[in-house]
């Protein structure tokens, strides 16, 4: 793993006994000695701390927020201009075929937009923005770590460092002083739990992480539990659930496209693939991402082909993400299925090791979200 990139917390992961794996070019903690199951449960019950420094942090700065927002709206089908200062929003870059190039979080920071993108896509995203955002400087932030503090006690933990943390609502962003470090904090995450994402100067990252971990309620959590948490929360993983072949409507992400960017809206269209995406918003897509609950105890993972019944030879979809859900207490999955099989309660069959095993199409999320609205 010598050619892998290190996050500013690499040495700390080793000291904590993490099992490190390659992920998107980085050496990342898969799990700690606590183990996936307990890490998952701990995050749902108390607080988990994740190193997500592999993700791309990018600053967009034009002449003013309005100019920067309007430029960004040419690449994403979301309402950037209407985002209030100090607020964050989910979005995605689309291509001319209406496919999703990456998903991202974007925040109005007053004089600039702060964007967080996926690690595996960040080089391409930055090149894409640099090439296409006229009059906007695109700067990757390379001197900061990114932490996620997630779980029902996250507010209590972080407010002890800076009481302003308690005043933030879901999807607020603010600059807080944590352990003397100037941190860019959002009240958001990737677990379905309340919590924060914290951009901290690299030089102060280990000290802040150690201070957070010193709290009795906080445990370090690895990528494996991050995946089972996000899957229970029904959240997409780029590369599994969404990719360049997947449109927003297929991905069941219509909610992320605000009215102002839709047909009839004041700034309708104007993003790559708009004709296709707006058409599907109006008429639906031929397939859609759904939750899938295996009826039996066997997990069904990505790549399992789905059929309408136990005998048919014609596939109707594929599992995109599948695992065991520790909070659900059984296997869970998400997948793309043909439109006629998307009604909750529909039974479909997955081909697993030569057998056809039933799954029930199920509303997402599997575990209700616990956000502070």
């Amino acid at each position, binding site marked *: 793993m010598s050619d892998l990139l290190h996050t500013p917390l690499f040495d700390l992961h080793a000291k904590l006994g993490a099992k490190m794996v390659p992920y998107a070019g980085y050496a990342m903690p*898969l*799990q700690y000695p606590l*183990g*996936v*199951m307990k890490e*998952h449960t701990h995050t749902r019950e108390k607080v988990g701390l994740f190193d997500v420094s592999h993700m791309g942090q990018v600053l967009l700065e034009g002449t003013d927020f309005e100019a920067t927002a309007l430029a960004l709206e040419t690449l994403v089908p979301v309402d950037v201009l209407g985002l209030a200062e100090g607020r964050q929003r989910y979005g995605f870059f689309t291509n001319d075929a209406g496919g999703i190039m990456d998903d991202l979080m974007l925040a109005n920071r007053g004089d600039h937009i702060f964007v967080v993108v996926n690690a595996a896509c960040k080089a391409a995203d930055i090149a894409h923005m640099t090439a296409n955002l006229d009059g906007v400087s695109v700067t990757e932030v390379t001197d900061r770590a990114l932490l996620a503090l997630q779980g029902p006690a996250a507010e209590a933990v972080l407010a002890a460092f800076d009481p302003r943390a308690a005043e933030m609502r879901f999807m607020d962003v603010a600059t807080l002083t944590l352990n003397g470090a100037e941190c860019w904090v959002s009240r958001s995450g990737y677990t379905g739990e309340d919590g924060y994402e914290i951009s901290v100067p690299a030089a102060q990252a280990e000290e802040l992480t150690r201070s957070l971990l010193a709290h009795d309620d906080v445990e370090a959590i690895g990528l*494996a*539990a991050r995946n*089972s948490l996000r899957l229970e929360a029904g959240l997409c993983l780029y590369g599994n659930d969404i990719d360049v072949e997947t449109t927003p409507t297929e991905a069941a992400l219509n909610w992320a496209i605000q009215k102002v960017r839709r047909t009839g809206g004041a700034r309708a269209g104007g993003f790559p693939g708009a004709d296709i995406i707006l058409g599907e918003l109006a008429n639906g897509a031929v397939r859609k991402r759904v939750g899938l609950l295996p009826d039996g*105890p*066997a*997990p069904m*993972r990505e790549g399992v082909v789905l059929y309408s019944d136990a005998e048919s030879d014609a596939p109707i979809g594929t599992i995109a993400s599948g*695992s*065991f859900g*520790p909070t659900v207490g059984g*296997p869970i999955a998400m997948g793309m299925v043909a439109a006629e099989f998307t009604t909750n309660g529909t039974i479909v069959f997955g081909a697993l*090791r030569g057998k056809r095993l039933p799954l029930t199409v199920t509303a997402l999320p599997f575990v209700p979200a616990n956000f502070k609205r």
Partner: protein
Amino acid sequence: MKFTEEHEWLRAEGDLVVVGITSHASAQLGDIVFVELPDVGTVVAKDDEVVVIESVKAASDILAPIDGEIVEINEALGDTPSLANDDAMGEGWFMKIRPSDPAQMDAYMDEAAYNALIA
């Protein structure tokens, strides 16, 4: 008790051989959430994929270490797959095989050799 390089253990029990995975393997796999065992009566050849272990993270195949017939499986793993974590070398056994060639066991490592392998 004998050990394979695939991190299985084999223990003679009368004329049967009990098979499971080592504590080392179970720790590497992490939390085991499902074990798919073969049907009793299945005739297996050495290196056939006979068991699938699912952890939260991934699925892993376990190969038959010897030729023979599956005569008993550990039904307790159905309700409590975590037995394969908590007592991998004991209550977490997978299956009992009636070997067609008991001498196949002799080729495997003893405990000292296995411990050296994983050291």
